[in-house]
C-alpha cells in the first residue's frame, strides 16, 4: 500500500535511531563485559537485541508503505568510557527516540495513519521503559555510590 511520504520520512528518522541504538548498546555491552560488569553487560546486550527487533518492525512497515528503508544512515554512536557515562548516553539516545516518535505520532494522526501510529506508540512505551531504567540507575548510584553500584553489576561469570 502506497504510504504518505512524510510518514515514511518519520519512520526512517525512527529507524536511524534504532540502528544507532543497536550499535551503541552492543559496544557498551562488550565494554562492560571486558570490565567484568557482567550484569550490566547482559542488560546492554538485551537492549541491543531489542533495538534490532524494533528496527525490523520499522523496516517492515516502511516496505509495506512502499518506501525505502534508510539502512545505512546513523546518528552519532556515543561510546562512553565509563559505565556511568554509557548509561547517560543511552538515556540521551532514548530521550531523542521518544521525541522523534512522538512527532511522528502527531503526523500520523494528521494524515490518519493509525497503523503507523500504533507501531510508533509501542516504540515510545518501550523507549520510556529504557529511560526509566536509566533514571533508576542514576538514583541507585546517587544513593549507594558508584563503587557499590558497580560491585552490584559484576554478577556471575562472563557468558
Amino acid at each position, binding site marked *: *500500500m502506497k504510504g504518505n511520504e*512524510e510518514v515514511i*520520512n*518519520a519512520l*526512517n*528518522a525512527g529507524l*536511524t535511531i534504532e540502528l544507532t541504538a543497536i550499535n551503541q548498546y552492543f559496544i557498551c555491552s562488550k565494554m562492560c563485559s571486558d570490565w567484568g560488569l557482567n550484569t550490566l553487560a547482559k542488560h546492554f546486550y538485551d537492549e541491543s537485541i531489542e533495538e534490532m527487533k524494533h528496527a525490523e518492525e520499522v523496516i517492515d512497515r516502511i*516496505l*509495506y508503505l*512502499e*518506501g*525505502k*528503508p*534508510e*539502512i*545505512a*544512515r546513523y*546518528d*552519532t554512536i556515543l561510546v562512553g568510557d565509563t559505565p556511568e557515562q554509557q548509561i547517560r548516553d543511552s538515556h540521551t539516545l532514548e530521550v*531523542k527516540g521518544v*521525541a*522523534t516518535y512522538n*512527532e*511522528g505520532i502527531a*503526523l500520523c494522526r494528521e494524515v490518519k495513519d493509525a497503523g503507523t501510529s500504533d507501531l510508533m506508540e509501542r516504540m515510545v512505551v518501550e523507549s520510556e521503559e529504557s529511560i526509566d531504567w536509566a533514571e533508576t540507575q542514576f538514583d541507585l548510584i546517587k544513593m549507594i555510590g558508584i563503587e557499590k553500584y558497580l560491585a552490584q553489576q559484576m554478577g556471575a561469570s562472563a557468558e
Partner: protein
Amino acid sequence: MSFPSNNILSACGDCSVAKELQQAGDDLLVCSCFDVRESTVREVVEQGAESIAEVTAGCGAGGGCGACHVRIQRVLCGMPAKCGSGRFDLCGGCGSIGALCGCLIEEENQAELATA
C-alpha cells in the same frame, strides 16, 4: 506490496539530497565573514580537510565570527550545509529531525557569543 522501482536500499538519502541541492544551483552562503559558499567548502573537504580548522586553513570559512561552524560541520559529515527544512529531515549537525533540531539555537548562541 510492490517494490519501489529504483534501488531499494539507498546508501544514504542525505548524500543524494546534497547532490540535488548542488545540481539545482542552490549554493548556500556558508560563511558570511569571508564570503565562502557551500561548493567551496565541499571542494576543500573533498581535497582532504577533516576538521573545521582545516576547512578554515583551506578556504577561510569559519575563521571569523564562528557562527557558521555548525554548517561546516554538516558538510564535514557529508550532509548539506543547511539543516533539512522538512519536519522529518535529519540534521547533520545534531542528528535530530527538523522539528526537534537545536542547531538554529546553537547558531544563534554562537553568533551572540561572537558579537558579545
